[in-house]
Every structure is written in C-alpha cells, then in structure tokens.
C-alpha cells in the first residue's frame, strides 16, 4: 500500500519537475539571447560608426585642399576651417561612441579589436593635433593692400599648417583608413558570430519550448487517462461493493469503520453504516456484552504481528452468532451471522486495515440443524425399533389402534364447530385428555420414543392453554403435530403388523395368561389389564426411583363395555398414585414405613347396584394445603372461594382441568390432565368418584360405575 502510494506521488510530481526544469532552461536561453541581441546591436552600431568614419580622412583632405586653394586665391577660408573643426570633433565623439559600443558588445576585452582600436587611436592622434592647430588660427589670414591682398602672418602660419597637414594626408588616409577598415572587418566578424549565436539560442529556445509543450501535452493526456482509469476502477469497485452478497467493511487501527463498505452490509446488519463509526457500536446491539468484549479483544489480536490469522480462526467469537432483528411487521426475527476478519497486507508490511466479512449463514445453519434433527430422528427411529421389539406384536397393535382412535377423536374435536374462546378451551382440554391417555399407555409399554413425541404435542397444548387469549390460528401448531404424530404412529402400526406376523405365537402374552381368563379378558389380542397395569407400575416406579408392589383384584370381571374406559382410568390412577401419592423410599423410611409402597386396585360388584373401581396407595395422603395453593396460583379458585372451601371440595380441585401439583413436568405425570381425564371418563360412563385420604397414611379413590346397560353410550367418536 505504502509503496504504491509512493509511486503514485512520483508520477504526479514528474510533470511539475520537468516543466520547471524546462522553464528554467528556457529562461536562461532567452536571457542569453537577449544579451546576445544587445551585443549584436552594439557591435552593429560600432560597425556603422567605423564605416561612417572611413570617409572622414578623404573629407579632411578635401577640406584642407579647399583651405589651401582659398589661401592661394585669397578667398574666404573660414567655412572649410569650420567644417574641419566640426568633422574633427565628430571624429572624436564617434571614437568615444565606438568605445562605448565595443564595451557593450563585449569586445572591451578582445585583444584583436583593442589592437586595431589602438592603431586607429595612434594614427588619429598623430593627425588630430594638426587639425586642432589649423582651427586655432584666429583673425583674417589676409592683409589687404592696394596691390591686392596678400597673406599676413596668420595667413602664412595657417598655410604652413595646412600644407603640413596635406603633406601627411596620404599617411593619415592610409593609417586611419586602414585601422577603420580593420575595425570594421573585425566588427563584421563579431556581428556575424553574435548573430549566429543569437540564432542558435533562439533555435534551441524554440526547440525547448516545443519540447516543453509536447511534454505538457503528454502529461495532460496521461493524467486524463489516469483519471479515467481511476474513475473506471472506482466505478468497478463500487459495482463490486454494490453486488457482493457478503457484508464487506474495513477497520482501521482504532477499529473505526472505513470509508467504503458493501451494500449488503446494511441489509445483513439491519442498520445504517456510518463511515468512521466504531465497530464496537455496530456490534453492541447484536451480541451480549461478554461476547462483545471477547470479540473486541479478538479483533485487536489481528494487529499483533506475531499472531497468524489462520491460526486463530477457531477462537473467533463472532464465527457464528445468533442475532435478533425487529421484523418490519412487528416481532423479531432470528438470523445467524458469521464474521470473519482478514488483514489487508501492503508491500510486505503489516496490514494497515482489517477487512471484515459478514455473511448471513442462517440457511446454512438451518440446513445443519435439519441434518442434526434428521440424524436425531434416525437415532430415535432406531431406538423406537428397539423399543418396539420389546413389546409383543399384538399388544403393540392394540396400542396403535387405541392411539389412532385417540388421535382421530382429537381431530374430531377440532373439527367440531365452535369459535368462541370457551369453546376453543373446551376443545383444547378435550384434545389434551385424549393425547394424555395414549401417552400413559406408551409410557406403560416402555415406548419412550413414542411417549416423547406425544409429550411434544402436549407441550404445544400446554403452551396454548397458558395463553390469556386463544383463537383458531393458535391451533395450527397443534394440528401440524397431530399430523406428524399420525404419520409416525402409522409407521409404528405397519411395524407392529409385521412384527405380529413374524413373532412366534409363543411369544405373545396370550400364552402367559391362563386360557380361561384369556378368553374373558383378551379382546383381539389385547393383554390382560392387570398385566398392563403391572407394566405401567414397573415403568413408572423405575423412572421415579420408587419401590412399589401392585396388587389387582377382580379386574378380569370388568364388563366389556367398561373395559376400554377402565383401562384408561386405571393406567392414569396407577401412575398418579406412584408419582403423587407415594413418597420416595428415604421419606418412607423416615416416616417408619416400609420402603416398598403398595398400590391396590380392585373391581367389585355386578349385582344390579353397579360396580366400584378402587385405587388405593399407602403414600403420603392428599396434601390439601398444597392443592389449595396450587389452585389459587393457577386461578382455578378465587381467594374468597378458597377461604370458604371445605376439605372435600378442596380435594375435588384435583379433577379440574389444568391442575397439577407435580413440581416438574415429566413424561410420567404432572400435566394436570391425568385426573381431569379420569373424571371425564368416569362421568362419560355415568359414574362418580369419591376420595378418602389420611395424611401420611393413604389415598383411596372409589369410582362408582352404574350397571352396564343403556347408560353406557358409545364413547368413542370416530
């Protein structure tokens, strides 16, 4: 990352560096050019002067000749003398200007030029004083006489000077003229040199300027292309971030969120993402405080150079978290999220950022969960088969028949019209009784897998019963479970049929029961009732870690119309006696009772007066205070009623729907439906229940049933 930024900086800087260099070079060239041009101008000036001066020796000669002739012909010579003085003065001044120009043209130090200049000066200085002398003669040169004019003294002196000057004229013309010619030639060369070098500078300057222009154009194009590339790259990054399903984000060293993140992040986390916001704040609403603290520690580990990121994956506390989001339509929704973190590496250095990746793994988790469930189901199936194999086929068939009947009856209850809350609650209780009855039977046959399933349905029913308000919608889970249970029992039924086919006759319970009794009791291969009860008692006592002996009397005499109901009732009562009536062995010992409890069941009567079914245990008796407390807590009685209630009325509460005193709901008891179902069944048969109990000694239920006849209607609704 760092190196790349460095590259980037240099490429940005290059045009500036190049442009500055070129501008400096160009400035230098132009300065030199201007200087050369100035020198060229000065040299040209000097050259022009030198050229102009070359005519002067001839001019002096002409003027001097004019003076000479004038003097001879005694004419006025003032004018040429004046001209000579002016020209001489001009020559002097021109020399000064030439010197100045030479200096300006940078030739002040040129040896050649100075030599020529020296020669010029020497020649001029030899000539100049003569001209000066000529100009110094004042007054008329003539003396006028009658004989005519003649030269006076001045005139003669003037004539002598003029003659002398003219005598030197050839030398002067040669020397001065030669020097001027040389100077002009030298200057000509200089002007040529300077002109050429000026041209060179200008050419180079133009070339440099053109190059600069080209370079600037190149850089401009390149930066435009780079900008376009950057824009395209930026757009592609935006596309990726907008499309990717994972929530991507960056974290800096302070664990603050980076400037960009994928669009999915907002969707997955159900919140707006603020750049620069703290990751901790983002996480806080999602996870418990403890997980949050661990998670922050974990993320900080990634900055540690020594820690290998692949080797700490397993300790990531955010690896899979369950979070709840408010649903738009109200309520909450549970999702499973998985956070992963990667260091963003740059140039072999430690990452400057962490890349965070959030994935919604709810589907995956659910699939895993379903897989787990199906595994558990397979195991349950296997368990069930093992359990089924323990039960004689005919007994199993009977159980399946009973269960199917109970479930159909439950369904029939649901199907009845009735939408009022009270009607719905009545349906609920009805279904509960049916379901509870078959659970008892399943428990009695040690079919724990089936019992567990029925227990689940009961769970749904209990959940519903505890609600303040129920409507038809709330029964959906019930009917779904009912459906599942029917499928399940259908499978068990098929198995039972096959089992009944393959089991040798000797293995069925028929062979155990004396043939005479068997004929009376056994109906379609059902086991005798006392046998079934013995099994129920054995199973229940084992599950409760209690020791119980069961004695049954007269059960084989139960008339056929009562048999089904009696079986239901007695299975309930027997289980109830063990779970609620009988104390644990240590409690019995403490109360100086035998640690093996006794449960006695009997069926008597038949002489016109009806029958009496008795279930008695030598347990702790009915705890009427606890019964009353429970009834109050469950709202079955009002506090005002409770205060007025006598003991028999209090005992009667245990038959009310929804009553249960067992602390823990187990498969064996404690739904508060057992005695409710018993009471219901007894009433359906047109009977009544009486209770006798003594604290710490016994509990006895006496169920009076009418003589069989018209009163016993078909109790099973198909």
């Amino acid at each position, binding site marked *: 990352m760092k190196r790349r930024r460095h590259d980037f900086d240099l490429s940005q800087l290059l045009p500036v560096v190049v442009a500055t260099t070129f501008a400096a070079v160009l400035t230098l060239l132009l300065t030199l050019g201007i200087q050369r041009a100035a020198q060229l101008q000065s040299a040209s000036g000097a050259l022009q002067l030198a050229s102009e001066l070359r005519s002067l020796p001839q001019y002096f000669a002409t003027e001097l000749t004019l003076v000479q002739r004038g003097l001879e012909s005694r004419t006025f010579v003032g004018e040429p003398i004046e001209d000579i003085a002016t020209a001489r003065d001009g020559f002097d001044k021109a020399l000064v200007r030439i010197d100045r120009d030479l200096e300006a043209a940078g030739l002040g130090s040129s040896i050649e030029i100075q030599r020529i200049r020296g020669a010029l000066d020497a020649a001029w200085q030899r000539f100049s004083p003569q001209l000066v002398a000529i100009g110094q003669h004042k007054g008329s040169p003539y003396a006028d006489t009658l004989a005519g004019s003649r030269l006076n003294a001045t005139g003669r002196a003037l004539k002598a000077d003029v003659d002398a000057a003219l005598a030197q004229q050839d030398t002067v013309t040669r020397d001065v003229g030669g020097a001027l010619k040389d100077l002009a030639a030298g200057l000509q060369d200089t002007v040529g040199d300077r002109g050429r070098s000026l041209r060179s500078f200008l050419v180079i300057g133009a070339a440099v300027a053109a190059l600069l222009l080209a370079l600037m154009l190149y850089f401009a194009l390149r930066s435009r292309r780079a900008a376009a590339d950057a824009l395209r790259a930026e757009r592609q990054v935006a596309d990726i971030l907008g499309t990717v399903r994972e929530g991507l984000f960056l974290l800096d060293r302070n664990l603050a969120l980076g400037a960009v993140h994928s669009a999915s992040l907002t969707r997955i986390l159900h919140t707006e993402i603020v750049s620069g916001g703290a990751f901790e704040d983002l996480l806080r609403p999602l996870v418990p405080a403890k997980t949050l603290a661990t998670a922050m520690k974990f993320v900080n580990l990634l900055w540690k150079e020594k820690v290998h990121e692949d080797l700490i994956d397993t300790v990531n506390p955010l690896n899979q978290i369950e979070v709840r989001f408010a649903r738009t339509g109200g309520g909450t929704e549970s999702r499973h999220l998985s956070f992963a973190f990667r260091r963003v590496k740059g140039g072999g250095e430690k990452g400057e950022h962490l890349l965070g990746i959030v994935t919604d793994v709810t589907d995956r988790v659910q699939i895993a969960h379903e897989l787990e469930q199906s595994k558990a189901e397979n195991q349950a199936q296997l368990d069930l088969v093992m359990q089924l194999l323990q039960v004689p086929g005919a007994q199993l068939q009977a159980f399946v028949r009973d269960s199917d009947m109970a479930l159909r009856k439950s369904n*029939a209850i649901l199907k009845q019209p009735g939408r009022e809350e009270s009607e719905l609650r009545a349906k609920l209780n009805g279904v509960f009784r049916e379901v509870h009855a078959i659970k008892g039977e399943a428990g009695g046959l040690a079919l724990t897998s089936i019992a567990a399933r029925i227990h689940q349905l009961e769970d749904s029913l209990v959940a519903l019963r505890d609600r303040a308000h129920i409507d038809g919608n709330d029964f959906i889970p019930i009917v*779904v479970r*009912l459906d599942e249970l029917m499928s399940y029992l259908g499978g068990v039924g098929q198995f039972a049929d096959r089992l009944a086919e393959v089991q040798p006759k000797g293995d069925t319970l028929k062979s155990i029961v004396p043939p005479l009794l068997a004929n009376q009791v056994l109906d379609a291969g059902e086991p005798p009732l006392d046998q079934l009860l013995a099994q129920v008692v054995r199973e229940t006592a084992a599950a409760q870690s209690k020791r119980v002996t069961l004695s049954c009397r007269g059960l084989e005499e139960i008339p056929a119309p009562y048999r089904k109901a009696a079986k239901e009732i007695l299975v309930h009562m027997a289980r109830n006696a063990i779970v609620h009536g009988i104390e644990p062995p240590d409690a019995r010992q403490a109360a100086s009772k035998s640690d093996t409890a006794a449960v006695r069941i009997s069926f008597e009567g038949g002489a016109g007066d009806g029958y009496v079914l008795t279930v008695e245990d030598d347990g702790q008796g009915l705890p009427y205070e606890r019964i009353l407390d429970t009834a109050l807590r469950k709202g079955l009685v009002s506090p005002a009623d409770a205060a007025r209630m006598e003991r028999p009325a209090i005992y009667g509460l245990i038959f009310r729907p929804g009553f249960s005193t067992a602390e823990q709901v187990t498969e064996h008891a404690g739904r508060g439906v057992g005695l409710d179902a018993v009471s219901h069944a007894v009433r359906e048969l047109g009977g009544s229940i009486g209770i006798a109990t003594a604290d710490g000694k016994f509990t006895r239920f006496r169920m009076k049933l009418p003589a069989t006849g018209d009163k016993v209607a078909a109790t099973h609704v198909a």
Partner: protein
Amino acid sequence: MSLQREIGTFVAAVLNYFDTAVQQAAVVGTPYLALGKPPEIFDYTGMIRISGKRKGVVYFTAPKGMLSVMLMRMQETDMSDANLRDLVGEVANTLSGNARKDFGRNFIISTPSVVAGSSTTIGYSPDSRPIVVPIDWRAYHANLVVCLN
C-alpha cells in the same frame, strides 16, 4: 421453514384479504386433518400448486353465497360466474404472493387457477393428510386447505 409457519403464512394471507379488500374480518376456526375422505369443496375454489422443497396444493374454497356477499361489500353489483371466479382467483393470488415473499427460492409456486363446482375433486398425493383451516365470515363458511408434504 416448518409446515406450521407455512400454514400460518397462508392463513394470514386470507385473513388479510378479508381485512383489506372486503373490509370485514373473518374468523379462523380450529384447523383439523381431513381423514379418510377429501375435505369439502364449495362452489368456487382458487388454488395454487407448490413444488420444490415441498410439494402439494393450497386452495381456498368458498360457497357462492359468501363470494356474492363479499363482492357486494366490495361495491360490485355484477354477481356473474366470471366475477365470482375472479374473486376466488384473487384470494389464491394473495396466497401465491405471500408464499413467494415468505418462502423464498426453495419453493416453486404455480400461477393460481380457479375451478367451479362443488363436485370437483382436487388432486393431491394420497399419503398426505390435508389440513383444513375453517374460515368463518358473517354466517358463511369457507375452507383454506393446505396439503403439503
């Protein structure tokens, strides 16, 4: 997704239709299993078929009287067969729409179809038990039937 939630979605769709389109709430009765014989079919039935993770059929079946009164409440005066068909089709449409929204890509949902006549039989796999959710509205009685395996 559990069958329970799926049924909940369908029931909610129907109730919502009564709440919003008909502007008079319907009441759900206790659902039950159709055991032995197929559930009762009324005069008009709007149905969707589902395949994918689950397979089966979901339909709303209602008597002509109920649909007519529903149309009346919707300010419709034309009680023609075509309009009654449209109405059950409309309900089936909301079933399909909600299912698509809630169940996601694991379900393939057919476009709704409408059948008329109470003697119609709706084909579904014989080993599945249809779940019948009674829908009561005013004095009328309709059924939402969910048959998925």
